[in-house]
């Protein structure tokens, strides 16, 4: 299994990293991240890119929606629970990487 080790950092350290450089995608966002969706990109992975994009859009991940990373799993900080404009969606970081975000001020 290949898991990005960033998620093993203590929460404080992760938060500090974020202040310096905001994550580009939701898959790399730390717990508590709040931001806005810039784009939903078809990326290759577990599904054909177009299908992944459609499924994300169907769950409410559209440009401009506000997102907040509410919860994450125990192992590898995965999966994550994200509040998207009032709806809570659970997904894995691998798929969340297709959602490009910018931090809210």
């Amino acid at each position, binding site marked *: *299994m290949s898991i990005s080790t960033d998620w093993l950092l203590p929460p404080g350290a992760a938060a500090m990293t974020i202040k310096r450089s905001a994550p580009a995608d939701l898959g790399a966002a730390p717990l508590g991240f709040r931001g806005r969706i810039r784009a*939903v990109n*078809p990326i290759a*992975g*577990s*599904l054909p890119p*177009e299908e*992944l*994009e*459609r*499924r*994300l*859009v*169907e*769950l*409410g991940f*559209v440009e401009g*929606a506000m997102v907040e990373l*509410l*919860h*994450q*799993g*125990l*192992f*590898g900080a*995965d*999966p994550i*629970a994200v509040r998207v*404009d*009032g*709806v*809570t*969606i*659970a*997904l*894995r970081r*691998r*798929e969340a990487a297709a959602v490009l975000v910018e931090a809210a001020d």
Partner: protein
Amino acid sequence: MNEIRSLSRDQRVALVGRPNCGKTALFNALTGSRQKVANYPGVTVERKEGALATPAGRQVKLLDLPGTYSLRARSPDEVVTRDAVLGRLAGETPPDLFVCVGDATNLRLCLRLVLEIKRTGQPMVFALNMFDIARHRGMSIDVARLEAELGVPVVTSVAVRRGGTAALLAKVDEALAAPHTPHAAEGWSEPDAAGVRRLQKEADRILRAAVQHPEAPDTVTARLDKVLLHPVAGLAILLAVLFLMFQAVFTWAAPVMELIKGGFDALGLWVGTLLPEGLLLSFIQNGLIAGVGSVLVFLPQILVLFLFILLLEDFGYMSRAAFLMDKIMGGAGLHGRAFIPLLSSFACAIPGIMSTRVIDSRRDRLATILVAPLMTCSARIPVYTLIIGAFIPDRSVGGVFSLQGLVMFGLYTAGIASALGVSFLLKKFVFQGAPPEPFMLELPDYKRPDARNVLMGLYQRGLIFLKRAGTTILAMMCVIWVLASVPRPPEGATQPAIEYSLAAKIGHAMEPIIAPIGFNWQIGVALIPGMAAREVAVASLGTVYAIENAEEEPAELGSALAGKWSIATALALLAWYVFAPQCASTLVVVRRETGSLGWMWFLFGYMLALAYAAAFVTYQGAVLLGLG
């Protein structure tokens, strides 16, 4: 012509909506107990239909379509809904009206589905369900504006309150009064990503125009999730819930099970006083009453287990459980959503396998179906308790645990471990190369479980189980009885009657195969009827030994076995039952759900191989240790 026809016949209305939107609660409120549960032809998707009369006196047949997130149909359930909405479902008359049900507290994703269905051109009404909760939370929904923006009639409803559906029924009347001809939708095609995005953005625009969210949003769900989805505390609570559930399955159900067992025993004795000794009495006593009774006795356990599952589902916890377990199950190559089906399989693999339909990906679904029968179902319990009671000494280990309880726990653990192991191997060798299916699902807001919903669900589960007991298992018991009774022993026979039967011939024929795993011919005989259902083996052993020991004092089966078998044989039989594919109904359901005879035989083959290997190793190991 069409109009005359549509006046003279029952009108058809179909409910469509997302999962968790209160659609089933609304269906129950509208139809009460006038429901019929069956399957759609050719697929094992549950078809629920009810009857109701509208205020204007129309007789309406209401169809509760499976929940769906979109018309893009990714699971067999969603295919049924899509085809029904498009009016092209085989064997179904296209409905006169669709009622799209939406959760008023959570409209964002509902509205996209409404727009999607509207695009098909089918006649529809949008019901804003749970409107009371939305208002209570301080949301203000401009129904007239919503109606204008969506371009379909909108009505509010409160499924769980008396009279909460009056406005909806009036609207249904109004819509059905308009002249119409039910028809199939033409020219629908699956939207691409841009199309889906356009619909969602349009839904968002309408939402902003018609719905005002409160200044201070509801925080109950957020506060509960802080604890229930906590990485550590959440898992601990999940384990505690499961522990409580299994305690309940075994302790709450026990008194009722005793009662049922006592009832069937009494019934058997009573029949014995009515009929003369002979073939007919034997058939009724041993074939019908004992056979059906040995299965019905599990009804309480299945009901308790489903009570927990339905409560947790209605509360909104099940998707959280899937979230918490996703990574852990993923390590074994299973999907987070496989958690619920595998949990159900502790009661019985059949509802477990049927609930794998929530898993979108065929590969993940197949993996779950193939390992579900390894979970220790309640049919194994009588076999386990019989053998443990007879062979494992009743003493405590370390002063705290009972040795018998530990063996039972060990058997459950063996089941779970083998399920995880097999799915890991499947991922490694059978489904190699396939990328893992994404895990994406909505975590709905928590809500108080609705008593009517839960009871209705419980009633339907119980009914399905009873039907199975009344058909498959009853039929198998008749076959078994014939095998064990025919041919009759010759005049002046010295040996027990069963020695002359077909069953004994089969048992003896099996001896060379089963001797290396320590089984005698009587066990071999019991294994054959045990194919119908595992617990039947206990009844069969009872019959075999009862007839064999007819000369001696009738003893309890357990103590009779203790005198006849070695500990090695008993342990081998326990090991056998952890894996053995001994349940014809499960195999039938696997064939139906996978749509393939090949996967059914694969399941049968690998489980049989594991069972034989486990029993062989256990028996030979025990003999080496001097327990033979």
